[in-house]
């Protein structure tokens, strides 16, 4: 399967990087054709500019992010790996969505319409792997914004039968080493399945 892994954490020695490494190992183990995008390492600029806004009704991405859009159109499985901050994806990843998931890449918007039409029919598997500093209870109260963004909003423009997988660690702020190791094992197990 053609798989794109998009990962995002500013620190090279962070737990998110360890999680992404384990995910890549698992996907490679099952023989996937892999592309990996590390947004921080590549110096991705998450700022959606005035120039992009001015042409946002035109089809296609800004030339500056054309390679990222090509990867998105190429993959059958999309795996997002990130820490949950303020109950959602970090600004770095939100900016990747804002700038890359544009008209003609991710959706189409017919004239006189306010409902987008899906254009990412190539994506049949959507996987999110994330860590939450706070507990599952607190995240439930806050409304699991990041989870909804993936399993509803992004899912809505993928293949109509696309399956979503949510792999989340809660209470990461107070997690022990053995809990972290257990989560890494869970990531590998789930992705190998």
């Amino acid at each position, binding site marked *: 399967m053609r798989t794109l892994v998009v990962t995002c*954490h*500013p*620190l*090279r020695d*962070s737990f998110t990087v360890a999680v992404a490494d384990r995910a890549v190992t698992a996907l490679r183990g099952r023989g996937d054709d892999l592309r990996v995008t590390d947004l*921080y390492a590549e110096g991705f600029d*998450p*700022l*959606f*500019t*005035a120039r*992009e*806004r*001015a042409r946002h009704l035109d089809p296609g991405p800004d030339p500056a992010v054309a390679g990222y859009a090509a990867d998105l159109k190429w993959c059958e499985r999309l795996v997002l790996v990130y820490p949950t*901050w*303020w*109950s*959602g*994806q*970090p*600004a*770095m990843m*939100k*900016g990747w*969505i*804002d700038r890359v*998931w544009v008209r003609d890449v991710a959706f189409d*918007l017919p004239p*006189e*319409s*306010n*409902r*987008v039409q899906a254009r990412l029919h190539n994506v049949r598997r959507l996987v999110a792997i994330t860590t939450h*500093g*706070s507990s599952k209870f*607190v995240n439930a*109260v*806050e*409304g699991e*914004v*990041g989870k*909804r*963004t993936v399993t*509803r*909003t*992004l899912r*809505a423009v993928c293949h109509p039968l696309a399956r979503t997988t949510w792999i989340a660690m809660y209470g990461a*702020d*107070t997690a022990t080493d053995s809990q972290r190791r257990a989560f890494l094992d869970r990531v590998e197990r789930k992705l190998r399945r």
Partner: protein
Amino acid sequence: MDVLVVRAHPQQGSYTHAVGDAAVRGFETAGHHVTLLDLYASGFAPAMSAAERAAYYGEQPLIDPQTAEHAALVQRAEVLVFVYPTWWSGPPAILKGWLERVMVPGVAFRFDAKGRVRPALTNVRRIVGVSTYGSPWTYVKLLQDGGRRMLTRALRLNCGLRTPTTWLGLYSIDTLGDTERAAFLDRVEHTMARLEPVRA
């Protein structure tokens, strides 16, 4: 009251700019002291840097003079107002990044002895959101409004659970005419002019 309006839209002259201006007018009519923070105009960088992440749990997480300046405005504010277009069920990356880089430990919350998050925004007595949506209201409710939840739940938990919130949304904006857009600006201005912080 001391009001901080945070606005996020890349284009000068955009409808979101007009919405922010209407909100400021409303508060000024009612005699409040308003500070307008336009994130794009101030050249705010959305992404938390490696140095900032490394300093996040330390003594001084605000290592950028600009985030320190914005944090001082937040700590003085009695009303926080967010004006932005909703993209992919959430705020633009620049506003998401502002929450990450400015609402840090010591400003928005603190950790107790057991490492749990405790509120620190006790100066804030009301949270207000004004957003535009490409989608109709029904579709926003179906997908759920991530930006609204982030501000009225996650952020509000750090102000105190009883902090009142006000939300104004303009839906299906791509297919609305000038009359509806103008009417919404009036609604924003009048609503802001009437707002009172309920909690004493």
